[in-house]
């Protein structure tokens, strides 16, 4: 049994071409709007990159409409985002700073780009002292456009729309492991203790408490696997050397090796505290995935397909997914009986699944185009710049 929907389970022509184009039109217009500013840039590479990304995002949405499936097309975008984000980010760092490492001098100058991973750790210290325990700047500066206010504002706005779907449509790290998870045809490790799902919550609890106790962003300093492919503190002491080793080991283990062996997003499912934090917003988000008990035959295909193990036997019996569901659509696409369905809270489960999917996808894809699309365009423009 394949653990991921490698083939389209629904008929290839879920919708006629004309209707699919019609449904894609709003996203095409949205993409034009989002990239319109880039079209007037003097740099040719940026203009080209914007056109490429705009077409890419629109084409993927069209395929979602045409085939009626979501996961595979979203995955193309998400993996591209995960793999290309470091390219653009590192290129920008090297252009500004000359290196991927961030020395203490740049930190005290407020030049560290703000990362949303820090947000849960900021809450208690900010509530107690109004201080932000991150070496960035509140307002954007010439040397640091990714300021704290801008990034928190962006995260809040996207979270209102996406909830936990942030982890499938906006996170620029998750795509790396989703890419590695897609490489192997079958998982080498099939049985994973479901209690691993609780580890991100434990890490979240631990880092929030420790950050409040130490007034330091503990996760960024000690545990973030993605420091290995973005920026890291300059190695100038034993402590920073240990930190660097931890970053690299976690990255290789959780983002490369385990996804290859398990075909799961192991970092997201079993480690990422921000993902756990973001799960809380599933409570207030109106969209969800439900299991139609009348159609479900308990075949476990959805459980096997879920890249973050957010469906359990018990949850299937209750007709739900777990709190950690990031609405990637893998379970819906793989379910032959159409028991796993998109759902708007308050409505009946099942009959209006496609309407719920469309409502969700328009918002989610609009956000993906706006945020992920701009990240992609930046990275592609760097690549084009090198190529030209």
């Amino acid at each position, binding site marked *: 049994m394949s653990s991921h929907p490698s083939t389209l389970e629904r008929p290839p022509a879920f919708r006629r071409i004309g209707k699919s184009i019609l449904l894609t039109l709003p996203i095409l217009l949205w993409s034009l709007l989002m990239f319109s500013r880039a079209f007037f840039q003097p740099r040719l590479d940026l203009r080209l990159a914007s056109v490429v990304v705009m077409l890419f995002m629109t084409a993927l949405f069209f395929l979602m409409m045409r085939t009626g499936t979501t996961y595979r097309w979203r995955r193309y975008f998400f993996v591209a985002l995960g793999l290309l984000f470091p390219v653009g980010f590192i290129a920008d760092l090297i252009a500004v700073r000359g290196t991927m490492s961030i020395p203490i001098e740049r930190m005290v100058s407020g030049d560290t780009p703000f990362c949303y991973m820090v947000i849960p750790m900021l809450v*208690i210290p900010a509530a*107690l002292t109004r201080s932000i325990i991150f070496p960035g700047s509140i307002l954007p500066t010439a040397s640091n456009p990714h300021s704290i206010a801008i990034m928190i504002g962006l995260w809040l706005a996207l979270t209102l729309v996406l909830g936990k779907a942030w982890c499938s449509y906006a996170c620029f790290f998750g795509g790396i492991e989703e890419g590695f998870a897609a490489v192997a045809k079958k998982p080498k*490790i099939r*049985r*994973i*203790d479901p*209690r*691993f799902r*609780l*580890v991100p*919550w*434990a*890490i979240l*609890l*631990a880092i929030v*408490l*420790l950050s*409040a*106790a130490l007034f330091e962003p503990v996760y960024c300093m000690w545990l973030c696997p993605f420091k290995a492919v973005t920026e890291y503190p300059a190695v100038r002491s034993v402590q920073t050397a240990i930190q660097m080793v931890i970053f690299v080991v976690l990255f290789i283990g959780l983002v490369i090796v385990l996804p290859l062996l398990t075909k799961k997003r192991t970092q997201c499912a079993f480690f990422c505290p921000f993902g756990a934090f973001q799960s809380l917003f599933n409570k207030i988000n109106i969209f969800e995935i439900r299991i139609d008990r009348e159609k479900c035959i308990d075949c476990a295909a959805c459980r096997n397909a879920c890249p973050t193990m957010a469906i359990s036997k018990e949850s299937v019996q209750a007709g739900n997914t777990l709190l950690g569901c990031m609405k990637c659509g893998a379970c819906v696409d793989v379910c032959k009986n159409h028991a796993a369905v998109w759902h708007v809270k308050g409505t009946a489960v099942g009959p209006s699944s496609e309407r719920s999917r469309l409502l969700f996808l328009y918002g989610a894809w609009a956000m993906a185009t706006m945020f992920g699309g701009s990240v992609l365009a930046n990275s592609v423009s760097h690549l084009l710049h090198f190529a030209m």
Partner: protein
Amino acid sequence: MNLPSISASVWEALALGLATGPICLASCGPVVVPWMLILPNGWRVRSHQLTVFLAARLMGYLLFACVAWWAGSAIPHAWSGRAWAFGCVQLLLAIALLTYAIGWPKTRSCAAESGRRLVQIGVAPQPGRTGAATLGFLTGINLCPPFLVAGVRASQLGSLPAALVFFVLFFAGTAVWFAPFLALGFVQRNPAIATVARIAAALLACYYGFLGASTLIARIIYV
């Protein structure tokens, strides 16, 4: 000491405890929160355990007050002694937390039945008075900053009883801030929350263990 100065010291100790209470809360939070979440549900159990924890913490305070008095005001600023004490206390705290986090695997535990799983978490010992007392005492003698501030002030008082009274009042001031921890009783206890708390306790034990070990190693290498 005359009456006005005793009165001033009483208020000073209370005020100091109240003022530094949030810092105590943040400082003890990594130990208290996971431990409270591991506890069985119910106000009575939690308040009883918190009382034992605070009483043991007070014992730690008083022991420190005696030592501080005995050594004059030397201890807070004598780095060599502090480093050893700090390192050892952190290691002990790590061991205590790990004990409650990992527990001892039982032969017929659910994890053991699950066959080829990547990790097995044993059954945690039922938290009792000993656990509360151990953690309370260790956080009591953990040289946290508010504690050191109180230690410096207490060592300037005229007599050992006065220093002890100062610490008791300081403790009373800080203890008020621990009341919110009882609110953790509102968190519905289920196996998932208890497991999360146990894993968090294990992670925090790793941190304290690392801190303690690195402090002691640095002490051995550089002195």
